[in-house]
């Protein structure tokens, strides 16, 4: 298969599935099948991309055969390929999980096409090599997510969606202004070309401004301190499958954009940005986990944990050493799987008992030992208990911190781990372990539960697998980090060999 087709497939498949889904909007059963097939196709395309990118390095194609930097480039290095496949995996699990809701008519005729359009936006953001094109993919993703967030038209949903919409539009404007400044200054938006032009010493002036604007935009989407408050107030309101996919994937798109732009363009020219990211990451970890400790609704607690975990990933990015970046990549992959699964479990609990309020739940360990095991594994992996995947992810970040003698960061990372464990124990004790309160609804609804359990079990196995055989994935993450820290390969894949007249300084490391 040609590289061009390989790069376009993750976009063609969801688009085709969405079109067919819209065509079949009166037939729920067929739509559900289309959803599963489309997502499975994305997963397979992603895995092929990983195999190819890992074998030959960076692959690129130009849409319309217009040479870069004039045409829009699609590029996949190891990081992008891995993100595309994990995105496909989450969509696949979500499509199975949604089966129950679709059959009950709770998601309506537009869920499947919207989810596929959302995935097209996500995959496009991972694969594009052009800053403005990335903005367009962000918009595709956002427009679909606005509607998905309000499917069901509940009052609470509209309230959450309002915050989500306003803040994300603000982020989009900042993104656009930042990209516009880069274009005004450099006359190009192709990220590889931006990197080449920034290599000339006289181009440094406006970089910091646009860098900070993009940091604010991506940070808002990723849920960084102090712009995260839209996240916990909107992610617990939609149907569980939607909040699971949002929780797993959408913030990571912001993280990915941050990784891509920082390593490729800004890190070498504006190291002050890395110091900024470093401080923000510590504040993000602490504020997220404290928010989680203060709440008493299962999905709200989990939403705050997204924020604090993003802090770890961004800390890895800020340290900018090979092991730190590899740790950040591994952390991202592990966290996507894990967080989606925790939301899946909370959806199962909600389905059985009709609530996610910790005070009104209890006794699930006796009622459903299997679901308790799934939650137990995921929660303790999130907290970083060995030998689960979260342990290795945290270990890499902490080791990178020790290497740089960043004692403050190490202390915050370890402290946040303890507090994470505390709030996971809180959910465990309240939902699963304690006796159900007297007035609680204990007539568990179990009929038709299996489509919701299949993805939960699948993701639990992946979490355990990532813990035991994590070495392979970590080695891959290290190879991906190497590519990120030496942008030459990426630039030459996009612009052709010999595009670099001066040497591009690899992203420098910052001493906090």
């Amino acid at each position: 298969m040609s590289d061009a087709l390989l790069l376009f497939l993750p976009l063609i498949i969801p688009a085709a599935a969405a079109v067919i889904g819209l065509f079949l909007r009166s037939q729920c059963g067929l739509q559900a099948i289309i959803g599963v097939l489309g997502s499975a196709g994305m997963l397979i395309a992603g895995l092929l991309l990983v195999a190819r990118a890992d074998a030959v390095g960076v692959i690129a194609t130009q849409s319309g055969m217009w040479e870069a930097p004039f045409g829009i480039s699609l590029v996949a290095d190891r990081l992008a390929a891995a993100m595309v496949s994990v995105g496909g995996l989450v969509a696949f699990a979500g499509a199975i999980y949604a089966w129950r809701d679709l059959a009950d008519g709770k998601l309506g005729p537009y869920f499947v096409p919207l989810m596929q359009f959302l995935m097209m936006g996500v995959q496009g953001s991972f694969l594009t090599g052009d800053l403005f094109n990335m903005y367009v993919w962000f918009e595709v993703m956002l427009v679909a997510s606005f509607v998905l967030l309000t499917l069901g038209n509940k009052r609470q949903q509209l309230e959450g969606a309002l915050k989500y919409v306003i803040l994300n539009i603000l982020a989009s404007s900042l993104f656009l202004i930042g990209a516009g400044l880069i274009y005004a200054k450099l006359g190009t938006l192709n990220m590889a070309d931006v990197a080449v032009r920034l290599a000339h010493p006289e181009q440094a002036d406006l970089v910091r401004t646009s860098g900070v604007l993009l940091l604010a935009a991506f940070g808002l989407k990723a849920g960084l301190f102090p712009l995260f408050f839209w996240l916990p107030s909107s992610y617990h309101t939609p149907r569980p499958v939607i909040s699971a996919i949002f929780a797993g994937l959408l913030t990571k798109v912001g993280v990915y954009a941050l990784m891509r732009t920082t390593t490729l363009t800004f890190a070498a020219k504006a190291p002050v940005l890395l110091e900024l990211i470093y401080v923000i990451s510590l504040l993000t970890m602490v504020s997220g986990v404290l928010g989680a400790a203060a709440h008493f609704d299962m999905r709200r607690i989990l939403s705050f944990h997204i924020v604090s975990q993003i802090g770890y990933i961004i800390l890895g990015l800020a340290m900018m050493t090979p092991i730190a970046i590899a740790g950040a990549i591994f952390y991202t992959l592990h966290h996507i799987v894990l967080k989606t699964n925790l939301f899946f479990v909370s959806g199962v609990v909600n389905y059985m008992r009709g609530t996610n309020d910790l005070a009104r739940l209890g006794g699930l360990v006796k009622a459903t030992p299997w679901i308790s095991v799934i939650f137990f594994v995921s929660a303790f992996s999130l907290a970083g208990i060995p030998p689960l995947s979260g342990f290795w992810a945290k270990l890499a970040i902490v080791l990178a911190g020790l290497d740089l003698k960043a004692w403050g960061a190490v202390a915050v990372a370890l402290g946040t781990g303890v507090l994470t464990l505390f709030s996971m124990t809180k959910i465990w004790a309240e939902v699963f372990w304690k006796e159900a309160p007297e007035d609680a609804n204990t007539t568990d609804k179990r009929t038709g539960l299996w489509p919701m359990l299949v993805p939960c079990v699948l993701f639990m196995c992946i979490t355990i697998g990532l813990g035991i055989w994590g070495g392979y994935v970590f080695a891959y993450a290290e190879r991906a980090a190497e590519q990120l820290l030496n942008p030459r390969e990426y630039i030459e894949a996009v612009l052709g060999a010999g595009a670099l007249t001066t040497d591009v300084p690899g992203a420098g490391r910052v001493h906090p």
Partner: protein
Amino acid sequence: MKTKSLLFAQMPRVALPLILVLAAVTFYRGHHVPGGGFIGGLVGALAFILVALGQGTEVARKVMRVEPISLLWLGVGIALFSLILGFIGGDGGFHGLWLDEFMVPLIGKVHLGTPMLFDLGVFLTVMGFATKVGFGLQEDNL
């Protein structure tokens, strides 16, 4: 919601074919001069939204014959097809493929290709979206 003005109620039915022709012209000239699928689609949608304003959305839906949503998926599908054609006949996604120019009486030289097919997809998508929203806002029920 219907208007009370007799003129406004009747005018759109007369204007409809004219506006649609205008939309088609705007769309066709768009490859090299201002115009194109997006703006053409908006103009086309306007024809039906005017009918909806004059005589209500039920009449407008009847005049339009197809559902707005159907235009939407058809449009996205056509645009997607033009991408895939680039792989079948060319070297990669969206690779522009053109037919030879030929003469058509009254119109003149005609030059058709996949970029125009993509633009047709945009035209239908925008038209479907704008009519869907235009009708929906009048019906208070999206």
